[in-house]
Each structure stands twice: as structure tokens, then as C-alpha cells.
């Protein structure tokens, strides 16, 4: 595996915008604590699939279950903490 990339909130926001092709959205428009799905950023289940793939590739992480996924994908902040806590 390539050397781990730091999963800073800024890096994750950039990844979200790039990998989900969010028209009219800039990384700095996403708040660290705002919910990613439903209210907040308004992502849907198709976005979740694509985001999982993008995060796996970028940071080499695996989301092992739906329960963990639900928790980890709450916000940019929870994602960042989860990825930084890996190894």
C-alpha cells in the first residue's frame, strides 16, 4: 500500500466534491460537522457507494459493516477521525 495520506477535513471535502461531481459546490462550502446525508449536504445512497470507493482508493480504508458506515459517514469530521484512527 502506498504511504498513508493525511485525511484532513480539507482533503476529504475536496474528495467529496471531486468524486461526486457536485455541481456548483466548492470544498469550502462544506462544514466539518454538517450531516452528509439527508439534510445538510443532501447526499444519497448512490453518493455513499461512490464515496466508499473513493475513500478506499485514496486512504486505503475499509468500511466493514453498515453500522460502522452509518457512524463514520455522519460528517466530514467523523470521517476524518475514523481515517486518522486507522492502522
Amino acid at each position, binding site marked *: 500500500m502506498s504511504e498513508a495520506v493525511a485525511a484532513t477535513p480539507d482533503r476529504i471535502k475536496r474528495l467529496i466534491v471531486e468524486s461526486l*461531481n457536485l*455541481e456548483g459546490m466548492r470544498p469550502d462550502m462544506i462544514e466539518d460537522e454538517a450531516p452528509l446525508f439527508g439534510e445538510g449536504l443532501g447526499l*444519497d445512497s*448512490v453518493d455513499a*457507494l461512490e464515496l466508499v470507493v473513493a475513500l478506499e482508493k485514496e486512504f486505503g480504508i475499509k468500511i466493514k459493516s453498515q453500522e460502522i458506515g452509518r457512524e463514520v459517514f455522519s460528517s466530514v469530521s467523523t470521517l476524518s477521525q475514523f481515517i486518522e484512527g486507522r492502522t
Partner: protein
Amino acid sequence: MDSELFLQPGRGTRVVAVSGVGAVCGLGWGTAPLWEGLRAGRPAIGPFERFDHRSHRTHLAAEVGDPPPELARAVPGWRRLSIADRFALFAAREAVEQAGLSVPLGEEDAGVFFGSSTGGMFESERFFEEFLRERKGRLSALASQQVNGPGDAVARHLGVTGPVETVSSACASGALALGRALEAVRTGEVEVAVAGGSDSLCELTYAGFNALRSVDEVPCRPFRAGRAGMSFGEGAAVLVLEPLERLLARGGEPLAVLAGAGASCDAHHMTAPDPSGKGAAAALAAALADAGLTPEGIDFVNVHGTGTPLNDAAEWRALQQVFGERSAEIPLVATKALVGHLLGCSGSLEAVATILCLRHGELHPAPCGGEAADPELPVTLVTREPLAMPEARAAVSTSLAFGGSNAALVFSRWTDRTA
């Protein structure tokens, strides 16, 4: 005896009115720009940018411009929708608004009957282009790739909870869907049918028709001497159908009556029509019989008229079989000369064009670049100016598809006398 149960006639027959129409095509978003462009005889066929077509033989299409920005805001899940879905939603919203029905339609006993040839094919092509080049792709491009995407999107958006069906039978799809909707309203299966078709430009059909050498290098010239193929178009068209009685009872105004539908198959060839025109004539005859009309009751024909040498010749033979001596005189309207061939949507867009002609008492022209008539096909095509026909009572629209699938729809003008 139990057998008597099986001898019951089916559900009753009701007169079916058109209470709303909506359309988007190369002439613009809405039936207003559609009629304005049709009446002016202004072809929307020209250079287009949807995809790179440099490697193909021909370089023309009637491409639809950007959607009205307020549409994207009004439709939840907009970014998941294919271009064909978006066309369908626009046309359905316009038609339902004109019909004066409120959304959601869940309380209305409504159904959606839709036609499409390629659905989200364009988006699938973009996915595979990226995937084959970079071994990666956005799954979301495939979210609405099915051929039933446009009809399903319409049902979801309008909250339709009755039957939702998509017909995909190449270029007859849009007309067949309307035939199915007519049946559903007539029999009482639904009280409101939102019916039509949608297709967007895509590389599959663009390459396919070009490979068949069925595409003209200039805008198509139906029934003209130099015709050399079809032109591509895209868009959607939707009709709202209701029982006439119900519509009148709620104070609505019928735009026309969908009086009959007929269908047939050539059983002849994968792409070419039966040159005898027998199959197309059978669909026309079936539609007239369904409407309870003789050929004399039809005042004009909205032809399939693709502009391919074979299609127009076969269609002429069919018209001869149905209209006999009148076949050279009955006015023909060739909508594809202006908006191109909308494939799975063409039957529904031409249904809207036919209704608009009946409503305005004018047949729109198809100038075909001033091209001379084909002496082999001595038809009366409306070419230069709109033809005033304020007394026109009824018209038939034909759709003749790959696979030999033929469909015809009869529309009659609604007047108080009709009721």
C-alpha cells in the same frame, strides 16, 4: 353456469379526451415554441455538440438546448436524472398543468404509459467511455440508465400510483404507449393517463443509423426527390388523457379526442419496411376502425415521413391502399423535416403536432429546402406555407419502426357537436 361469467363483455367504452399536452424538442422547451417553429416551417436541425461525431458520416441533429433553470430546482433528485428523464419531466409537468390537475396525482386513479427507445443510453455511454479509458467511472451515471427511466421519473414526480408501463418498440414506442393509454382510459382501468415518450441523442443510435447509411447529410427531406435519409432529433412529448365526460364535468376544455389506435407488424426485415406498405396500411385501417371512421372522415395525415428512400416509398403504398384515389390529394404533414426523428418519442411528439394543427385549423409546412417532389410519390405534402384547414375534423398520425412495427393514432377535433 360459470361459463356465463366468461361471456361477460369487458369494461365499458368511454370517449377519451386530451386535456393537456407538453413537449420539448429542438424547437424549444414547451408547446408554444414548438407550434411557433412548426408554423414558421423552421427546421431545428443543424450542427450539434452533445458528443463528438467527427468520426461519423454526417454531422446534424435537432439538439435541445439547456433546460429552464427553475426546472432543476423544482425537481428533487435532478442530478440523478438522465437527459431523457429531464425532457420527460418537463413535458409531463407542462401537460398536467394545462390539464388543470393538481400534483400529486395519487388521488386521481392515474397511470403513466410511456415510450422510449434508448432511455439513459447517453449517460451509460459516458460511463463506459470513462471506464474503458481510465478503468474508473461514476456509478451514478448508471442510476437512470434503464429504458423505463423517463416514464418512472414522471410517475415518481407526479405521485402516480396506478399502472406505470414503458413500451420500447423502436420508433413506434411513443405511438404504442398512447394506444395503450387510450385503452386504459376507455376501459376504466385509469381515470387519468399521462402518456407519451422521451428519447435523447446518443452515440448508439447515431452510429447505428449512420452505419445503415440512413442519415441525410442535409436536414431530412421527406417525400422529396433527392431525399437521402433521416435527421436525428431528441425530446419528449406528453398527453394527458381523461374520459371526455369527466373532463367536461370538471369544467375542463378538451384539446382533441383520441379517437382510435391501431398497430401491426410487417414481419419482414430487421430494419427495412415491407416495400408493399401492407403492414403500415393494416395499422392505419385498424386505427380508423377503432375510431369508427371511414377514410373519408380523415382530413389530413401526419406521416412518419423519415426521409429515407425506403420508408417514404412504403408509406406512400400504404396511403394508396387506405385512401385510394384520395391518396394523392389528402394533405400530408411531415413534422420530422423540422424537429428530426425523435425515435421512441416521435409518435408522441407527432401526436402533439397533430393536435396543434387541429386546434389551430392550420397544417404546418415542411419546406425541405425547396426540394422538388418525387414524381414516384405524387403526394400533397404541405411545404411552403401553413395550409388553412379550419374545418378539419380528424387526422391520423403514423409511426413505422424498425422491426416492422407500425402504429397509427386517430385524433378528432373536439366541438360541442362531437359530444
